[in-house]
């Protein structure tokens, strides 16, 4: 399909968006492109970078009314600024905010015109992810499915989402395809677009940015540091008390990685049951690019049973193995649960509080933690 100019304003990362800029006479070299502060698209880019990195979301109002080429340029400028911070966490957070923004636009489009939206979403799958999302309109049992995606592509995009909802065990799979509703394919697209943008920003980093851009990146870094809970408050990944699986997840969080859903649940349940104060647990998750302090605090309190429910137990080593999260080494020496490891390391005493898997099974339906949270 060919994209209209308005559409390209919403899809600034496509090759076609770059082509539009060229047609409009905008040069694409850094020195010419960035006329410097004062240009409306540069100002818009600064706001866009700040919104993505500091707020973690891009308010559609920021871009409303701007012509398509300015929306495209503002994305380019924002990506350059964020890339110039050299901060992996900032880059992931920006990529995720942009992907969420696109998801919102596509959902609006689907509400207005499903057929039209389906064509657009399929085109984005193809152009950005190199995957074929096929329109189907297939009735399977009591449900009508609108699109299907090849199995390997689906697994790639869904592997960090809540398996109770996105696992293929909760999907209709036939002939190597996973069947979905349009909105589900839009949600899944967010994962792929975020990863794509992260790679793009990383690869587009400029070695010697213009002074104004370097200054903007420095200011953004400072703002981000002020906005995040102190990292020093988080439990250290090097703690010898923690089993290797927990240390590995804490290290991944420290490096700014977005952990899969179950990994987050496990880490929170372990730290809660190990008696780590809630503020310290929240600080650990603050390194996650999709961090939202309010939601994280709510969810950690929920796991801790502080919101009227039961405290969640810590999954067993067998469960972690089955989910690919076990990092067993010689120090584990036959322990069957991460909490038993902690107990042994603390000299045979009990964890400060807590329990092991048995009662509050994390896999119980209807009692799970929404995928976007923690």
């Amino acid at each position, binding site marked *: 399909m060919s994209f209209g100019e308005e559409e390209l304003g919403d899809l600034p990362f496509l090759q076609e968006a770059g082509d539009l800029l060229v047609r409009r006479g905008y040069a694409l070299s850094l020195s010419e492109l960035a006329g410097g502060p004062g240009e409306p698209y540069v100002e818009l880019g600064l706001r866009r970078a700040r919104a993505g990195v500091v707020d973690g979301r891009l308010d559609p109002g920021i871009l409303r009314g701007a012509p398509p080429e300015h929306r495209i340029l503002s994305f380019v400028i924002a990506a350059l600024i964020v890339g110039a911070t050299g901060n992996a966490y900032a880059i992931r957070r920006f990529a995720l905010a942009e992907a969420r923004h696109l998801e919102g636009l596509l959902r609006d489009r689907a509400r207005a015109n499903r057929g039209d939206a389906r064509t657009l979403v399929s085109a984005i799958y193809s152009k950005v992810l190199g995957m074929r999302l096929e329109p189907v309109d297939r009735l399977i*049992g*009591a449900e009508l499915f609108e699109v299907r995606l090849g199995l390997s592509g689906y697994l790639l995009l869904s592997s960090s989402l809540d*398996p109770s909802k996105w696992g293929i065990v909760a999907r209709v*799979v*036939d002939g190597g395809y996973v069947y979905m509703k349009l909105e589900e394919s839009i949600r899944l697209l967010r994962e792929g677009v975020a990863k794509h943008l992260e790679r793009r920003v990383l690869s587009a980093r400029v070695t010697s940015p213009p002074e104004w851009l370097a200054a903007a990146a420095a200011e953004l870094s400072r703002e981000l540091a002020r906005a995040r809970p102190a990292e020093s408050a988080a439990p250290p990944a090097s703690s010898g008390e923690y089993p290797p699986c927990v240390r590995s997840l804490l290290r991944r969080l420290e490096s700014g990685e977005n952990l899969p859903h179950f990994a987050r649940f496990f880490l929170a349940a372990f730290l809660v049951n190990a008696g780590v104060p809630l503020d310290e647990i929240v600080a650990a998750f603050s390194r996650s690019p999709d961090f939202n302090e309010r939601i994280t605090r709510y969810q950690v309190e929920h796991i801790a049973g502080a919101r009227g429910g039961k405290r969640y137990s810590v999954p067993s080593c067998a469960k972690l193995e089955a989910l690919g999260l076990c990092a067993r080494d010689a120090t584990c020496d036959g322990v069957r649960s991460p909490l038993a490891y902690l107990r042994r390391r603390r000299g045979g005493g009990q964890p400060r509080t807590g329990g092991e898997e048995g009662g509050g099974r994390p896999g119980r339906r209807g009692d799970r933690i929404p995928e976007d949270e923690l």
Partner: protein
Amino acid sequence: MEGGLGEGEIEFLRTSYREYYYRSSSSLWIPPRLESREIGFLTFEGHFKRHMRAGTPGELVGAVLREVPWGIFYSVSYYEDPGNPDMDEKGWLGADLAFDIDVKDLHPACMDAHDFYACADGSVRPLSDGALPGCRRVDWVCPSCVEAGRREVLRLLDLLQRDLGVRPDSISIYYSGHRGFHVHVEDEGLRDLGREARAQVADYVSLSSYDPAFFARLLPISEGHLGTLVGWPARVAEALRAKYGVPPTRPALEALVGGDLRAAIDAAVAAVRVRIDPQVTVDISRIFRMPTSLNEKTGMSKLPCADIVACDPLTEAAVLSEEPVKVEVSYAPKLQLKGYTYGPYRRSTLKLPGFVAAFLVSKGVAKIVKSRGGASGP
């Protein structure tokens, strides 16, 4: 090995294994992309030698003939540097998708009849009597075990091909040489899947965390739409039809079971799920027994089954010599190999074909009777 082996037994097995590997050196199965695989040997001294690499088939066969390992393994993963002992430094490039069907997990009725506990005082306890300190479980193999495994493999194949769209020519099936089957998928589209994605596949196959509400939601209202069901929803619906004898529409089932549709679905799932060891599918750092190599639990080979229906493991996998060997058997249930039945035996001294002797010795229930000259054998 299932019991402690004496020097004579180890020597007998080593000699038998050497003879087999020399005899079949030109037909040993070689892993595709050998140079990117980690190779592991289990030695007769009980040590596991991992993180080896072989650049060519000749190198691998040479090492096998030189060392005569008790077990030979290769990684399902491909690595840039497969010989690096640090897993993080190996440089993971991808992995085959592997499934392990262990007959023990299928609980066939024959298992209670032939498995037993061998106790240190020489006594034997049936499985139903439970374990006691000083007793070890001895797993046996019979045609019914093989049939149970074969049925499960066929269900897995149906699912891999019809649901997951795996091409038949990318699937390889092997009898493990003991009491199970391995199914390997070499499909470029699935090679790059990480642990989380493999966990999803294992979960799909075994339905270990399914939600009954998902199946209930898909059950059609009218009979005319039953034919639109595919994949697991179709299999679960068929199991419901078999159990309740009505077309499995939602209204019909709700009328029969009242509000307990979830329980009915749970029962249907239990009847159709494929029982695999999920950890084997998820663990990409695992090394697998090499096809055509010998299984230290039985002395039988891991057998490629090109046609799973026609494959006859208890005949084709008994590859060791038929040369008679004199053994003293403490206890052995009936054993059916190569079309003949051996045993049951209790405190018997007799001559048996080499492949039967190797099975019993590997199970720790027989000792080699040495001739007056000191050599093993008749």
